[in-house]
């Protein structure tokens, strides 16, 4: 594909900027880079269902939180960290596939509401299932007794790894039958079925993909902070934030969500540090301005839709 080179170049450059932060910056910057990578992975995941398929999903926080809990519970039962993350990923992916089979029958506003309700239900269930989850007390994870720089670097690379995996998955999906089918569903679901797309299976695949990396990120995040509780793990705010990031960068594009996540996290840092009392309002203003003046996202400004590269080849 002709667009391949600049895409990969931009992607690798971006990842390198994040990956090299330990060389020239302090731990806070490294942490910010890791958070950018984490949210990048979340937004890129959301892109499968929200960007490609056009289903307004707000269940990101449910997958993130469940991933955190499954990972934490595994680790508390003596399962090594890496394996715990893998288990969290698989379990949550399976959960998403089952859930998707149910709620993907809804469309539009109803799907949006249903997917938000999933976050709240997960919180309530986790909170009342105290024997397994500790309920409102939350769960402690084994604190990793590494020097802070090393720990930070480790989790930076973990988050970058998850981001990279989600990006690679995006590129593969984008150029495959699946991605093409998802875009068809986005445009016209009935017509998609009539040309032979198994829309149910495709939507479930997209929903599952959108859950997988969130779960890994959630499990890794739990190991990183060492403590999780239901209110912090299942936040509606987080769910909406991830969607805003993807929109900010450009939903349905490959790098847009990551770019949006980076821009959003950095803006947040800026506001938090400088506007103690009004940071939330300023972020609100940013969202409003984004909707009005940048409806296609940052990438729509300079980059042609990668979509065009897919089938048409050239223009």
């Amino acid at each position, binding site marked *: 594909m002709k667009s391949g080179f600049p895409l990969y*170049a931009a992607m690798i450059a971006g990842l390198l900027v994040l990956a090299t932060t330990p060389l020239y910056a302090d731990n806070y910057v490294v942490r910010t880079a890791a958070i950018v990578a984490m949210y990048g992975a979340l937004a890129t995941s959301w892109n499968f269902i929200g960007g490609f398929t056009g289903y307004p999903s707000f269940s990101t926080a449910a997958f993130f939180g469940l991933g955190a809990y499954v990972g934490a519970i595994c680790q508390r039962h003596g399962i090594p960290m890496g394996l715990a993350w893998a288990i969290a990923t698989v379990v949550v992916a399976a959960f998403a596939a089952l859930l998707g089979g149910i709620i993907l029958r809804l469309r539009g506003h109803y799907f949006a509401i249903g997917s938000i309700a999933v976050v709240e239900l997960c919180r309530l269930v986790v909170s009342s299932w105290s024997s397994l989850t500790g309920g409102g007390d939350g769960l402690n994870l084994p604190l990793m007794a590494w020097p802070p720089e090393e720990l930070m670097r480790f989790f930076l690379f973990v988050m970058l790894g998850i981001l990279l995996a989600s990006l690679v998955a995006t590129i593969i999906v984008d150029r495959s039958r699946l991605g093409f089918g998802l875009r068809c569903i986005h445009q016209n679901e009935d017509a998609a079925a009539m040309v032979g797309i198994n829309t149910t299976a495709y939507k479930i695949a997209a929903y599952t993909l959108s859950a997988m990396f969130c779960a890994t990120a959630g499990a890794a995040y739990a190991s990183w902070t060492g*403590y999780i509780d239901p209110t912090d793990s299942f936040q509606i705010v987080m769910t909406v934030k991830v969607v805003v990031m993807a929109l900010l960068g450009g939903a349905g594009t490959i790098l847009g969500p990551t770019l949006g996540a980076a821009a959003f996290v950095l803006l947040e840092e800026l506001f938090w540090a400088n506007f103690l009392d009004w940071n939330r309002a300023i972020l609100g203003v940013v969202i409003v301005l984004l909707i009005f003046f940048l409806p296609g996202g940052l990438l729509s400004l300079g980059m042609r839709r990668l979509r065009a590269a897919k089938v048409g080849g050239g223009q």
Partner: protein
Amino acid sequence: MFAQGILRSARAGLLAGGVATGLLAAALTSPALAQETIKIGAPLALTGGLADEGHKQDVVWKMWVEKINAAGGIQVGDKKLKVELIEYDYQSEGQRASQLAEKLINDDKVQFLFSPFGSGHTKIVAGVGERYQVPTIACVASSESVYDQTLKYLFGTLSPNGGMTTAMVKFFKEKFPKTKSIAVLGRDDVFPKSMAEGIAKAAEAGGLTIAYKELYPVGTMDHAAALSSIKAAKPDWIYITGYTQDLILARKQMQDLGVTAPIVTMVTGPSYKEFTDGLGPLANGISSSSWWHHLTSYEGQGMWPTTAAFYEDFKARTKGDPDYVHGSCAAAGEVIVDALARAGSLDKAKVRDAIAATDIQTFYGPIKFGPNGMNLSRELPIIQVQDQAIKVLAPAAIKNADMIAMP
């Protein structure tokens, strides 16, 4: 094409520039200058669910910092150093709290952390402090589960809340010998839950029967069902835990539904002025326990020689009465002053050891940390609202009223 496109667009260019500058700026801020001040970092919940509590911490810390700087600062070795308090709003989100703790340590180079309100977020911030060996003082975390993680750099000024339950059961049984059963309704959240479980355990040990015991989830806006069940169980003592908004609602609904008992306890309810303000006459008769009360008359070292002196200062500044959050937060500052004086330097390990060896008397009462870093148990005040004012029932030394039954 990607790169060209970005460059071609002025707006995108601006943003990309902004992103780069942001990273650079962040990277370049390296205040490696000579240490002129003592920096204390405080991630605070100024918005979100814990905003009220966050603002309390904010008020009292600012008051303390101004006072100590007016007095020339903190004595460290042969120098007097001014104190700089750096606060960020973590929006009551745990993830932001750890992010900001990280920022405070790395970016702002703070030497101490004040942890935010609540046991859950204290755990998160203390975890960060521990990694960097930055002493963290928790002023509003009393669940012992926070301190059992072998965190060497975490110290808490509140006493274990276990002390609040056994003493209370004993005291109430003494005052109301007919008390046979208790109904417990607790919020499913770290501190309120541990208090609910704690009182149930203490009550059972004290020979009471548990007539009802349930937790309600965060976000509950109707207690009618639980209260109707409690009413049917006819307990002698109703014990409800939660945040102020939960307790106001629960009390109001108790009144609405005619649910009452000779003893009604709400934790931490009456410890906060907002509770009595919000309830008005309905607050009368409600008992509670607290870690500190401004009627106590402790004396000691620090900015405020007596409890009364602290009370005067606080009243002059805010026109209101301080509660235990204010007291405990100000005491946290005193811990640092004392430890620095003894350590004589800013060396992390020395300062940490000095804090661990703290044994002082202050307006807030004695502060001496146990092996887990928590202030040692002491007799905690049992309070009750009478005529819409807080009265202290126990301990005997500071008692200013006798216990009454619920009106």
